[in-house]
């Protein structure tokens, strides 16, 4: 499966990833939590070869073969699909055309089957099959971006902030679908999220990221039990003064 070893990624002179190692387990959901600018998306973009000449150091192995410094188009054909942050659907193509673009590298009757399956997963998309993608709501565009990635029949699917800008109800629906895709197709999923509660609810393994490094890793149960995660990611305050207001701010302990 996919293994990332000690990668360092630079944006010009700024170091966004400071030595990140990560191993995806086949058929499991892995989540990366972290605040804005922690470097979560950069990990995926580096793996997908979307940042030119990066990673600066380190290796990315898919089935023990290196895929670092290859073209995005080539990496996609190895069965890696990326649902980008901010959906990135093709605004002026219809919903169905968008989905068919997901199957661009494939041919044959299985494509039709997958189209029916995606419409089954997201019935809202089938109602709007002939509509231009740009006219969809944010939630529908997220579904479309996920459906489009599913049309590739990926081995590994990267999801970048699928909850961004969606209503709580819709977020729950999207995460339920993510779990379903993982169970039914056995797709390995790497999830990048700020919504820690939702992400820890579906994943099998989680990492916490800060300033371009992983600071904590473990099963969701371990992470949920961690005091720092509870306070800084789940917003559950643990220390309250006798008078009922917070007297000091807790410091994170992992640095």
């Amino acid at each position: 499966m996919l293994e990332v070893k000690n990668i360092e990624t630079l944006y010009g002179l700024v170091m966004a990833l400071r030595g990140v190692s990560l191993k995806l387990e086949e058929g499991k959901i892995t989540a990366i939590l972290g605040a804005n600018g922690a470097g979560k998306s950069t990990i995926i973009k580096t793996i997908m070869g979307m940042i030119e000449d990066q990673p600066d150091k380190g290796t990315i192995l898919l089935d023990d073969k290196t895929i670092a410094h290859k073209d995005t188009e080539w990496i996609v054909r190895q069965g890696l699909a990326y649902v980008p942050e901010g959906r990135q659907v093709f605004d002026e193509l219809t919903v169905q055309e968008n989905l068919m673009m997901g199957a661009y590298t494939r041919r044959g009757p299985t494509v039709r089957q997958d189209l029916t399956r995606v419409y089954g997963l997201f019935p809202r998309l089938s109602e709007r099959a002939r509509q231009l993608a740009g006219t969809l709501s944010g939630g529908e565009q997220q579904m479309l971006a996920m459906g489009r990635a599913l049309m590739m029949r990926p081995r590994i699917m990267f999801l970048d902030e699928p909850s961004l800008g969606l209503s709580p109800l819709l977020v729950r629906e999207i995460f339920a679908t993510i779990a379903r895709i993982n169970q039914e197709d056995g797709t390995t999923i790497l999830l990048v999220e700020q919504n820690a509660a939702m992400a820890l609810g579906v994943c099998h393994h989680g990492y916490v990221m800060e300033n371009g490094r992983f600071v904590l890793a473990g099963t969701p149960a371990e992470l949920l039990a961690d005091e720092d995660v509870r306070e800084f990611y789940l917003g559950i305050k643990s220390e309250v003064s006798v008078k009922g207001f917070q007297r000091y701010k807790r410091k994170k302990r992992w640095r």
Partner: protein
Amino acid sequence: MFFQLIASGVAIGATYALMALAMVIIYKTSEVLNFAQGDMAMLSAFIAFMLLTSQGLGFATAFALALAFAFFLGAFLEFAFLRRAKEPTVLGLIIITLGLEMVIYGLASWKWGGDQKDFPFPVSDFETYNLGGGVVMSQLNLVTLAVALALMLMLFLFFSYTKVGVAMKATQQNESAARLMGIRVNRVLMLTWGISSVVGAAAAFLIAPTDTLDPNLMWTPQLKGFSAAVLGGMTSLPGAVGGGFLLGVIENLFGGYVSVEFKSVVAFAVIVLVLCFKPSGLFAKHYVRKV
């Protein structure tokens, strides 16, 4: 008189529409205005001329080969020059096309000379048909119109129903997302240039018999095509077609009723007016992005 002017305007407009289409196809993918468009077409017309006269090939073979040449010429120019630009800006790429224009012009002048030649064509400009209502169209006009319409229909079908055509549109809209679909963006760009060059060459084959063949052949049609494209909003293929026909008709009406001397100025007046009053073009039905 009025209907006659409109009819011949439509016939002329068909060639403008083709040139406009050729420019828009490239502009849409890369926002590059291809100033070499006209001369690429001119070179293809010279190739057809050479195949017809010195090689003595039949019309069908000669034109097919020249169109194939046009396709490879467009793809080659993209591959060999535009893609080589390091950290390209739109302006830089436009300057490259200007350079290409001069190189091609120079090559054609050197190989075939600047003198005016007769371009052999299977249909005549002098054989006319009376279409009723006092409207007379030459055989050439009718063929021009038919070929142009057929090409437009083919382009429409290609962009709407083929996987590659839709992938080209997808690349135009969001290049990085297109890469994520596994679309080889560089190949799409090359193909874009090839197709655009073929459309331009078809226009040149239709224009050459009305005029004489020399290296300046496509200079005016390119400018007309450009104004037609602006009229249609620069990014819309149906807009370019509509703009081309409209420009042909406006120009002819102006020539017929106002002044023949200033007929060719109309195109530029149209550019200025459109840019002043409706910069998005008359036919732009652009989807407005949600902010």
